[in-house]
């Protein structure tokens, strides 16, 4: 036996005698993971988070989260002698006087943008494939939590340098707090330690940003991954894949290499962006003062939809009995986001209420086979995109020579008219695709080859689909194939009738092609 083998054996023995690790390692090293590119989206989230932790820790070694006033004397000469907070000063120091400091700042910020983009892309994948269905509802809830806290974490993170742009965002956040009826002015004074801007806010959000929220993320991500591990990952339908198995590659060595390799790829791409793409150049904005602002102020993209809603809100306030209620802030800033995120969180339960489906699902849906869900998803995305567009209405106006007035009215009206149109179009597209699938299975693939029949007729040769393809296109369970989707008792009363209506609307499908259909068509049919 080689020395290395002896050492490895001795180490393994040492650990196993104290932990019993051999048993669960044996089980888990052979765990099977299905392979599909769309499963890598969640991985991007995880790896971005790790990159954020590492680069963030680096930054904390130099960042001073204090708002005490200092005078700048670092290498960035245009700001020489300017009064600023220690937070802004230390960020300038990191950017210009710490080797690799600007690189780390930029990798950190890009990683945050990628983190949020990947969460949204992963959310779309999970939603459109129905991966949130039983038994994965808990993971969906954790995911929505991660999305929500991610938005907050990003906002707090880019506000730490106390520059003019992010300070404006903090001012807006303070105004939302202040607008809350009865307790608003108290909450604002408690959060900021007195009047705005005060000197307490940056140090307080620092602790939330580097300790409380990362701790929460670690806990939530751990549970999220443990659930995926224990429940096993979902898989796309195909030959050999059933609700009762997982087809893929084992953790060791394949998945370890692929997933581990992917981490380094994500790191590499993020590092590249940090190296060549300037992001958040705070030295151009100057330190925060409430008396100044720059034109074209925008939040980071994941808050753009919120800004868009606030911009398009009608100027509604109630002035009564010596009090003021700002509906123009509360509705777009609190109520609508509250409804959106609550709706998202509850969606798995709403869908199972409509369909009456209480079965476990481990095979994913092809989005076309769930037309209502897919249409609802596209409708929601359209709503968010229109809000997001309005969040940049000043930039859009200057670049495309439009008026802000026109964009605002377009988005105000479009917010309510375009999403339903998107729903109808998407549903029709899904049903068309189902029809196309059926035709493909029954008539085969068009080959473009023309053949003349003895009768003189010209026909195109259609190649029949392989058995694997036929299976993939017809394996899905359709709502009307279920014995009794909703028990009769569930359809009584106003609520029951509403539920039955939704259930029937959801059951709109093109029937999947069957072997019987194919046989009925007979041979020689083109």
């Amino acid at each position, binding site marked *: 036996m080689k020395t290395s083998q002896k050492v490895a054996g001795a180490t393994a023995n040492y650990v196993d005698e104290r932990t019993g690790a051999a048993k669960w390692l044996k089980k888990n090293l052979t*765990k*099977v993971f299905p392979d599909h590119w769309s499963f890598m989206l969640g991985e991007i989230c995880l790896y971005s988070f790790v990159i954020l932790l590492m680069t963030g820790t680096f930054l904390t070694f130099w960042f001073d989260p204090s708002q005490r006033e200092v005078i700048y004397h670092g290498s960035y000469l245009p700001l020489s002698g300017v009064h600023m907070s220690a937070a802004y000063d230390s960020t300038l120091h990191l950017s210009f006087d710490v*080797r*690799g400091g600007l*690189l780390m700042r930029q*990798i950190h910020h890009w990683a945050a943008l990628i983190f949020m983009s990947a969460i949204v892309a992963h959310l779309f994948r999970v939603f459109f494939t129905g991966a949130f269905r039983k038994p994965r509802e808990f993971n969906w809830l954790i995911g929505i939590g991660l999305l929500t806290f991610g938005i907050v974490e990003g906002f707090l993170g880019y506000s730490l340098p106390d520059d003019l742009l992010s300070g*404006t965002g903090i001012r*807006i956040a303070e*105004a939302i707090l202040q607008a*809350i009826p*009865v307790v608003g*002015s108290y909450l604002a*004074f408690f959060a*900021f*330690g*007195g009047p*705005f*801007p005060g000197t307490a806010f940056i140090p307080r959000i620092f602790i939330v940003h580097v300790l409380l929220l990362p701790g929460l993320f670690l806990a939530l991500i751990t549970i999220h991954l443990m659930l995926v591990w224990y*429940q*096993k990952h979902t898989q796309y339908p195909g030959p*050999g894949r059933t609700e*009762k*198995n997982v*087809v893929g590659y084992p953790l060791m060595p*394949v998945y370890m*290499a692929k997933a581990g*390799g*992917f*981490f*380094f*790829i994500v*790191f*590499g*791409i993020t*590092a*590249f962006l940090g*190296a*060549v793409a*300037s992001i958040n150049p705070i030295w151009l904005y100057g330190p925060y*003062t*409430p*008396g100044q*602002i720059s*034109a074209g102020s925008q939040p980071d993209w994941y808050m753009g939809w919120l800004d868009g809603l*606030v911009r398009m809100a009608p*100027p509604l*306030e109630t002035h009564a009995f*010596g009090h*003021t209620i*700002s509906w*123009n*802030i509360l509705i777009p800033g609190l109520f609508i986001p509250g409804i959106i995120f609550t709706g998202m969180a509850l969606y798995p339960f709403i869908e199972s209420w409509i369909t009456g489906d209480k079965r476990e699902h481990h095979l994913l849906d092809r989005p076309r086979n769930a037309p209502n869900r897919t249409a609802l998803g596209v409708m929601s995305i359209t709503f968010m995109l229109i809000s997001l567009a309005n969040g940049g209405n*000043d930039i859009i106006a200057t670049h495309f020579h439009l008026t802000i007035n026109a964009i*605002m009215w377009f988005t105000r009206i479009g917010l309510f008219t375009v999403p339903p149109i998107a729903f109808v179009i998407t549903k029709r597209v899904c049903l068309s695709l189902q029809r196309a699938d059926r035709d493909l299975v029954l008539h085969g693939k068009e080959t473009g080859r023309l053949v003349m029949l003895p009768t003189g007729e010209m026909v195109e040769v259609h190649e029949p689909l392989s058995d694997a393809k036929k*299976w993939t296109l017809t*394996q899905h369970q359709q709502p009307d194939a279920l014995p009794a989707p909703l028990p009769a008792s569930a359809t009584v009363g106003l609520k029951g009738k509403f539920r039955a209506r939704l259930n029937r609307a959801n059951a709109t499908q093109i029937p999947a092609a*069957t*072997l*019987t259909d194919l*046989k009925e068509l007979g041979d020689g049919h083109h």
Partner: protein
Amino acid sequence: MSDHSQVERFQDPGLPEHVHRNADVDPIAAKRAERQVAILFLLSAVGTVLTIVSYVFVKSDKYIYLPVMGSTNVQQLLLGIGLTAATLFIGLGAIQWAKKLMPDQEVIAERHEFRSEDVDRDDLVATFKERGEATGLGRRSLIKRTLGLALGLVGLSPLILLRDTGPLPGKYFDTTDWAAGTRLLLDPAGTPIKASDLEVGAVAQVLPELPAGTERTLENTGKDAVLLIRLHPEDFNLDAQRLSWTYQGIIAFSKICTHMGCAVALYEQQTHHLLCPCHQSTFDVTRAAKVIFGPAARPLPQLAITVNSDGYLVAQQPFTLPIGPSFWERNSSNG
């Protein structure tokens, strides 16, 4: 719809035949794949060397002009490219290794039922019942009630301890540093201003002169910032009272947006509109900063100004309304 029981559905043909990769059957292809992986890992090592060399030997104040990127710090760029290569190529190497050389036969594993066995569930229920009864909570309502009281109260202390996170707002929102006779000082110069210093069409930011020895803080600025705008007096469309708050065509408004507190810094000289860059609330200067567009619900409060005996612009009186965004206690019946 045909009768379901007689409809034959397509069957699952099972996993497809495994197709071997080149490297699985051809040792030359395998060697080539191995070389590719090795080169990728070596490129990563080169990247790390580049990072270390840049850190130690490249001057941190050297800049180079690059297309698209503009003036770029050489050391930062090289550190970044080095780090990119160091990490990216490990990943590419690992993926190439897995794809070309590691076994790619699909493996099947069975899923397990999550639901516990009935006997386990019944045992759990029984255990819970038995040990629950052993606590005696069911019989001993005094314990139950006082436990509830103790646990309910213990959460209050941490909340109360947060009281000192900030003072009570009191009358803070109602007042600024503007009072009768307060001189207007140009920001950032800090000098007093005469009417003749402002041309028609000009706009200036002013702050109040604070009592001697008082330091100006950001909190002061956040309440006191005022915009001074000069128009032709005939351009105004104001009632008599508001007109009396202007001086020879010079009008003063709070710069803090009544929507969400941003500085209303954009002035459109031709249209006499003030535009807030945050949410595009637009205020008409000729009509006492009336809101003509955007989500702001109230006009910018107007500061009444005049000149003192030395000819410097001063405030006639404090703001008659709280400036800035709304809050519950604000009496907004007058704007």
